[in-house]
């Protein structure tokens, strides 16, 4: 159980705050009609990406989902570039040609958000296989949702990862819904982690709203993978605060469900309460971070709005990579 020092705590809080503010802001900007394409917001799930990525270096790889902003920020992708990408601008992480669902930054080990549900599994196995060949202790983390847990790609990847003993962590973000379908309707076991037994790997479920729970369990799974122990299925139970995509009225959720979750299960509130009660950080220190992050998000939106669109000449660049 690795000890978290004050600077680790402040860094984790900053990351979670960046994700939250980023998503709250994208929610507002989307309503103005200036953002092209779909966006799926990660607000409510910040402790998962942050707790996991706190253990990773740029040499470790992650694969993401259609709900990828949180994974990007936690993996260190530049927020200014991300915002520009979401606005479809030339200054974006992928020159404005990918948008929300394709943000990637290979230098940071972020192999890309992905619009195909379950596509991260095989990609993550590939990255893990590469890490295994390199032999430097690198790992891959496959983030996927409760809905994706039913995809053949994910299940086949778990099989492959276990027969090849790959350094990969299957990180199930169980937010209770796949679009409008409740997890209890489409997953036959009470926990997604229950499925691990069928692949002969450890399956663990933790409270995904508690950064400390995610951090600890992910730390152990990643350590195990680095040491050659093989894959783990780690399930984090969490909530999404916004609709499946922006514009979803969430008629499938119970009245008051999100309100209760925002009050009782907000990972940022839980983190702040625990970290201050333990006397390791002060409320003033957290407030200072809140201010800095708010300024950063303002700057990101201003820069995105001011940035140029890609031109016709950009259309055919970066489409194929020649080896």
């Amino acid at each position, binding site marked *: 159980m690795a000890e978290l020092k004050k600077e680790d705590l402040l860094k984790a809080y900053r990351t979670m705050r960046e994700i939250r503010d980023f998503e709250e802001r994208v929610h507002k900007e989307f309503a103005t009609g200036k953002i092209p394409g779909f966006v799926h917001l990660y607000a409510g799930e910040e402790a998962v990406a942050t707790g996991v990525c706190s253990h990773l270096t740029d040499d470790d790889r992650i694969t993401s989902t259609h709900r990828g902003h949180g994974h990007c920020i936690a993996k260190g992708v530049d927020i200014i570039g991300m915002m520009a990408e979401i606005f479809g601008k030339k200054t974006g992480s992928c020159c404005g040609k990918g948008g929300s669902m394709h943000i990637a930054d290979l230098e940071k080990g972020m192999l890309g958000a992905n619009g195909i549900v379950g596509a991260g599994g095989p990609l993550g196995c590939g990255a893990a296989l590469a890490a295994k060949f390199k032999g430097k202790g690198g790992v891959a983390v496959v983030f996927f949702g409760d809905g994706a847990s039913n995809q053949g790609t994910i299940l086949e990847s778990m099989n492959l990862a276990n027969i090849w003993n790959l350094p990969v962590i299957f990180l199930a973000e169980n937010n209770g819904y796949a679009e409008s379908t409740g997890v209890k309707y489409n997953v036959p076991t*009470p926990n997604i982690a229950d499925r691990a037994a069928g692949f002969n790997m450890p399956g663990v*479920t933790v409270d995904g709203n508690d950064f400390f729970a995610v951090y600890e369990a992910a730390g152990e799974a990643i350590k195990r993978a680095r040491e050659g122990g093989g894959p783990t299925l780690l399930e984090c139970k969490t909530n999404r605060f916004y609709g499946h995509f922006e514009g979803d009225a969430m008629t499938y959720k119970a009245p008051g469900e999100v309100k209760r979750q925002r009050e009782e299960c907000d990972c940022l509130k839980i983190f702040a309460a625990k970290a201050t009660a333990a*006397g*390791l950080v002060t409320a003033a220190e957290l407030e200072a971070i809140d201010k800095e992050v708010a300024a950063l998000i303002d700057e990101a939106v201003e820069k995105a709005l001011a940035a140029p669109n890609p031109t016709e000449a950009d259309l055919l660049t970066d489409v194929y990579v020649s080896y």
Partner: protein
Amino acid sequence: MHNTKTTVGIIANPLSGRDVRRLVTKASVFQNAEKSNMVLRMLGVLGKLGVDEVFMLPDVSGVASRVIHAMRHGRAAEISAFPRVTFLEMPIRDSADDSLRAAELMVSMGVSVIIVMGGDGTHRVVANASGDTPLLTLSTGTNNVFPEIREATITGLAAGLVASGKVRLKDVASRNKVLRCEVNGSRKDMALVDLGVSTECWIGARALWEASCLTELFVSFAEPDAIGLSSIPALIHPVSRTDAYGLRLVVAPPGEGFMTVEAPIAPGVLLPVSVAEISEVRPKEVFKVETARGTLALDGEREIEFSENDSVKVWLEMDGPVTVDVNKVMLAAAKHHVLVRHHRN
């Protein structure tokens, strides 16, 4: 008395056996399908022994759903022997609160006994509400101390024998000890087997699987063949479930203290633990936790975070949950030929 129904509660925790111990130790993965099978095996014998109705948690994706499926699609001859199965009307939150709420409801409905399926944690939660209602304990996994590891059919049989009055409860039931704790005079909680004090600041992934962060340990009983924290004092000074005292142990830094014990503190894990002090504790003797900041682990799982500003107290009580000794039930059944029919020749 004759027109009142004989009822039994079954609390099977579908969430048990999924914590981080699967990753950090070699703890077993207990499939929920098997928990449902255990319930079905018990339903068969409970019905045959004259139990009229069984109450269960209504979890939709876990143990109950498979029981419902089996009752709808199973073989008629088998199903017709089942008691009536009623699912409690209560919201499911997928947390420990579900088991607590179910226990409260079952007690208020006056069930004869409650069969609990889960680990130490599930039993601890149920014990918070079971009061005088006797529990039959059934372990679903390998890293438990309080519940019995036993074939469910026999537990069901014992439950049926006691519930139907074929074996007298008072001959086979006994009250357990508990360790109680409170923080600043409120925030009360309890442990059935062991209460560990850890320097870990956070509840985090809950389980306590490293001895290095353990500073103090209280146990209500200590069986040398047990797995987990209670094995530490148990290998020095065994205490039975019926002895009118428990133990307190103070951990020393590695190599210090007056002895080191190699203890199986988790499945597949044998670790040296150095001991500074070990002493018997009497009921109601209150101890102030000496560790300034950390967490309290109740039956092996971190549950309460405390800091320098908090005053944490721990003591032993004799007023824990009532449990039925399945061994004694079956011995009594044998002695009185309860399940025997004599043939006249």
